[in-house]
């Protein structure tokens, strides 16, 4: 009872997507009777994140859950924690191979590049051969991987199709709109989360292009669910963050209590939420989905 578990993410404070995970660990902690802490670098600086991992290890918890935002940066701190005898589960970004190389018990997540690639394949199947990737957090390496995967699946060189949109909704809307008017032949759009998806929806709406352009996005929210139902967004890539938060807590507590652990990594995504399965998802979008 009361095992202390720490989850260290790479996301800045204001990243809304991580709330699902926060909600999931809160729920899992409550159900399992474990004490789960969420830690993140306030500005999203990965070097700060490494310090937080080291620090989490210094408090000698029953387990650490950590994202592999950057293998190089986190290799030292994570292996040190593993060497110290602390069980580690990796989640979210990164691959199962990297997880194994770090000595983690398992990985629950979705490789960013593959997710982007999967989205690209869907777009290609619809006949897209040019695209726009709206990147609202370009300084974060994972974001570029997603766009890159999408580009590779379409088989086009990635250049100025990935725009550095910034985070201001009005600027995003107008930048998307400007790009589309300068490149009217664009036939697919990928947004990397609600921050860029919502303004993009508005841009398409005010340009009268809603439903005209193939539109895929990462992650879910109320507006995105609405747009999927309205045939504006084709799909949302759902990596089921809930699982990424919930599962590791359950596994780590059970490991601490009974010494049991599953033998394999879990691919929590990419799952594609489309018009067909939206009804189920919608209710908890943004909170548990």
């Amino acid at each position, binding site marked *: 009872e009361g095992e202390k578990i720490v989850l260290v993410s790479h996301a800045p404070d204001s990243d809304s997507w991580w709330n699902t995970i926060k909600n999931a660990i809160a729920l899992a902690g409550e159900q399992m009777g474990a004490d789960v802490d969420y830690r993140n670098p306030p500005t999203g600086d990965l070097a700060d994140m490494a310090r937080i991992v080291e620090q989490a290890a210094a408090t000698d918890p029953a387990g650490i859950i950590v994202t592999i935002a950057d293998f190089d940066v986190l290799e030292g701190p994570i292996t040190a924690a593993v060497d110290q005898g602390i069980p580690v589960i990796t989640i979210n970004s990164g691959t199962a191979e990297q997880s194994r190389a770090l000595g983690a018990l398992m990985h629950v997540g979705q490789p960013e590049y593959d997710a982007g690639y999967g989205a690209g394949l869907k777009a290609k199947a619809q006949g897209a051969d040019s695209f726009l990737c709206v990147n609202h957090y370009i300084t974060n390496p994972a974001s570029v991987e997603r766009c890159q995967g999408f580009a590779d699946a379409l088989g086009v060189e990635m250049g100025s199709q990935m725009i550095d949109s910034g985070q*201001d909704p009005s600027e995003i809307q107008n930048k998307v*709109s400007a790009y589309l*008017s300068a490149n009217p032949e664009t036939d697919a759009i990928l947004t990397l989360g609600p921050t860029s998806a919502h303004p993009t929806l508005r841009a398409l709406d005010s*340009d009268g292009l809603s439903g005209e352009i193939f539109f895929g996005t990462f992650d879910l929210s109320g507006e995105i669910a609405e747009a999927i139902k309205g045939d504006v967004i084709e799909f949302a890539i759902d990596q089921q963050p809930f699982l990424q938060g919930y599962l590791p807590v359950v596994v780590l507590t059970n490991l601490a209590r009974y010494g049991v652990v599953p033998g394999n990594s879990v691919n929590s995504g990419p799952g594609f939420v489309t018009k067909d399965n939206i009804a189920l998802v919608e209710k908890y979008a943004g909170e548990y989905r």
Partner: protein
Amino acid sequence: MTDERLREVSRLRRAMIRPELGAIAGTILVFVFFLMIAGDSGMFGPKGIQNWTVVSAQFAIIAVGACLLMIAGEFDLSVGSMIGFAGVVIAILSVQWGWPVWASIIVAFAICLALGFVNGVLVIKTGLPSFIVTLAFLYILRGLTIWLSILTTRQTIIGGVKDVAEGDPLAWAFGGVILKPVFQWLADIGLIDTFTRGTRAGQPVVEGVPMLVVWALALIVFGHFLLTKTKFGNWIFAAGGDKQAARYVGVPVDRVKILMFMFTAFCACVFATCQVMEFGSAAADRGLLKEFEAIICVVIGGALLTGGYGSVIGAALGALIFGVVQQGLFFSGAESSLFRVFLGTILILAVILNTYIRRMITGER
């Protein structure tokens, strides 16, 4: 000093020597530049014009506040955080607590004005530089915003404001567009294009004048009038030029500065409210780095960072330059990560030009 010791200065040159000259020159340059490289990309069609107008108007709203405050000798780094904070307050009150939208907006304005007041009083009473005080508020308000929104909704994006704002007696003043019939008529007589494909085929490409633009224009006119025509404007210059001297001759410097902090906060709240009403959601990361962007507009517009000198028209042109350059780069298809490089370069060139102009005015070497 009599005239014999003055060299001839042409009338033209004298007329040109004004704070906003640099910004005027910059605006012309920027337009010529983009007309050349992106003239055929739709940037100067009705839709394109609306595009950069809206972006510029956003910058202008916060730039007017920052401009008056800067002329009064202070500046406010908490503008960006205040934008995020005000938005989240409106969304929590209206969506989570179920208050009417107009009440939420009024409360948000009241809170922002109070925060501006606190900023001002802290700066005045402690004698600390406003950089430090408002930097502290940059952190405090951003932290509170994130904490509040997670506490009440478990999310950092709070949506659904659009639904509750339907038919609200105040919300229309911040979202939406006006003059729709005029634009419809313009489209009918063929002066603006209509959509040819998509869901809106047949409608004019520009629906009307967004309220955002109306607010920007109103604030610019108000700020300009206040600064150049009124007694209070003279005091703003005085408070920023030399606060000790101003105080000696009886200018209520403290009151002027505190009011300007409140005005800046008011502008930030207008910005936030417009954004919430237009996008129907508030997020904890809204307004990030907006404080710098406001300062950049103001400085491009010819104001002196140390106070006592500047013009609202200049700041508005600075906002226009900022908006046009940002959007223009997208229209012209330049690599978007280079935007920051352009922005920095323009900033430096603009201030160098402005400094040269100011030296001509004051005659210093």
